[in-house]
């Protein structure tokens, strides 16, 4: 088991390095750079000389391999450098936005789990009944509805029914929890619905599989009440795949809310990413991608550790 875990742990590093390399190459293939864009307004009036000097200031005149090496060595020391557009340290740029995106992701996860587990279990227990069909249609609809459109519909309904708009200016939770929730509950609901659909389907199919196992039949045969069978035996064993899906979705949510943030005018990581791409702010894009992919890779690793811990077959040498 330890051998498996160590191997799994070490495999994270080539993946992270691959992400770094891919990001580094991709953004440099995008036409134009930060210097060109900054002086785009007064093109022609700025001499080539000034542009070159600006590039040298950011190290963009260095050979690519050296730029990459400098950056990766910095990242290894957790130093992401400064934003090329604003000049502020990357950590300062990201900190508040990360808090915002993280909060929305956590709230959406809560919405999803609270909806998904009861619905999924119910659908599995009543397989092929009208309840099952209703839950399935509800969850397939959740997968089909774009969260950003659901967000627009929420805003519209609040306007028409309550003549009220959620606040458009972000208040941190520690300043005023009430103001903060009034704004963030709506994106959390819009994203949470889609998210819950993924989790509901997983809960349902995992429960269906578990309910067919021999140990459930044994539990029934020895006369255990249904509630205990569900709580002690079925749900516990069905939760593993559900937990995986929830964890992976969560990891993606932190950076993947690009469109929903736009609708609710939230200044989160997604919006920051779009702006950074528009500005060709290499250092900021690189840091954001490393952050999002890093969270995903670490969550993935932790899930594997969890699996190996719960199910010893996974880490056995013959795999």
């Amino acid at each position, binding site marked *: 088991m330890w051998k498996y875990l160590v191997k799994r742990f070490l*495999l994270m590093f*080539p*993946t992270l390095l*691959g*992400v770094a390399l*891919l990001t580094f190459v*991709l*953004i440099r*293939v*995008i*036409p134009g750079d930060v210097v060109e864009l900054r002086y785009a307004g007064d093109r022609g009036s700025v001499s080539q000389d000034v542009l070159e000097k600006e590039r040298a200031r950011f190290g963009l005149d260095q050979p690519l391999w050296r730029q990459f090496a400098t950056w990766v060595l910095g990242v290894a020391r957790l130093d992401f450098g400064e934003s090329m557009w604003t000049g502020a340290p990357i950590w300062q740029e990201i900190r508040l936005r990360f808090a915002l995106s993280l909060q929305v992701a956590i709230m959406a996860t809560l919405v999803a789990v609270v909806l998904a587990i009861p619905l999924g279990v119910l659908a599995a227990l009543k*397989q*092929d009944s009208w309840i099952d*069909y209703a839950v*399935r*249609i509800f969850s*397939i*609809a959740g*997968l*089909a*509805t*774009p969260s*950003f*459109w*659901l967000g*627009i*519909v929420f*805003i*519209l309904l609040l*306007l*028409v029914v309550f003549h009220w708009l959620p606040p458009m200016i972000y208040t941190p939770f520690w300043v005023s929890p009430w103001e903060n929730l009034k704004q963030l509950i709506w994106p959390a609901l819009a994203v949470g619905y889609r998210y819950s659909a993924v989790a509901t389907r997983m809960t349902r*199919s995992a429960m269906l599989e578990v309910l067919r196992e021999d140990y459930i039949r044994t539990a029934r045969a020895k006369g255990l009440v249904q509630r205990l069978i569900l709580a002690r035996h079925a749900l516990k064993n069905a939760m593993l795949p559900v937990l995986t899906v929830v964890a992976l979705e969560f990891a*993606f949510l932190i*950076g*993947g809310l*690009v*469109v929903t943030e*736009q*609708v609710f005018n939230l200044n989160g990581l997604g919006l920051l*990413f*779009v702006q950074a*791409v528009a500005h060709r702010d290499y250092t900021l894009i690189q840091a954001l*991608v490393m952050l*999002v*992919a890093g969270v*995903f*890779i670490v969550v993935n690793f932790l899930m594997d550790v969890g699996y190996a811990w719960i199910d010893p077959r996974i880490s056995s040498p013959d795999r």
Partner: protein
Amino acid sequence: MAVARVPVPEAVEAAPPGAVARWLAATREFCRARTLGAVGAAVIVVMFAVALLAPVLSSYDPEAVDFGAMLARPSLAHWLGTDSFGRDVLSRLIFGSRTALMVGFGASVLGATLGAILGVGSAYFGGRVDLYLQRVMDVFLSFPLIVLALALVAILGNSIPNLIMAIMVPMIPRSALVIRSSALAIREMPFVDAARAAGFGHARIVLRHMLPNVMAPYLIMLTAFLGQAILAEASLSFLGLGVQEPTAAWGLMLRGAAVEFAETAPWMAIFPGLAISLSVFAFNLFGDSLRDALDPRLRTQ
């Protein structure tokens, strides 16, 4: 494991007589046993018809600006109202189905197919090739779909073929991952050994003997991707990074003015969203039933 029935290598390639009749029977069985899936399929057929007959069905040019009829309410002249340029919303919805289907099918067919080839190849060759390919896939899988697509659009520029490319790329590793695990089991089948013993080349074995046998997971991935591709196109167009004005596209119709005028002209915001949801819903419904029908483990006893 019984090895009684070793299929002749060529067996999967030639369609036996009566294939049409068998397809018809299978289709009838599908409609009977999986009502939800059949409903999804029906919506998809209607959507195709609408896309094909768009010029006949719509009474307005989807790109024609009419400043005399800006933000008109739904009426007999404009069934679903007009947008802030006076363009007919219904006509734009009808023509938008072409964009959605084109990008949806283009991206998902290409993504699923390339992924399938990589997945089968990776499983077939095994060893180092498999190990390295898996690491590369891991890297691509670590990006959220929308983030990778966004970066690719920025590189390629936003024409429709480029949009298809940008949405296709993140799908490849997802398809490869699933197909690889199915292909691993097929690699151990006797007919693959037989083909190798017969002296066939690697390309031939992968393309003609292994690929046809991963059709079930392939079709399941494909239908799942269809919905995702339509959603991704809508999201990118909504951000202004996908289809560009004045082309009719559902995500684009939700952009800008639709949100600004949401209170006075809600039809602008509501109908395109419904069109996206309904079409993705239909594809998912159909895909789900297809998965249940193709995967014997999921059948209810």
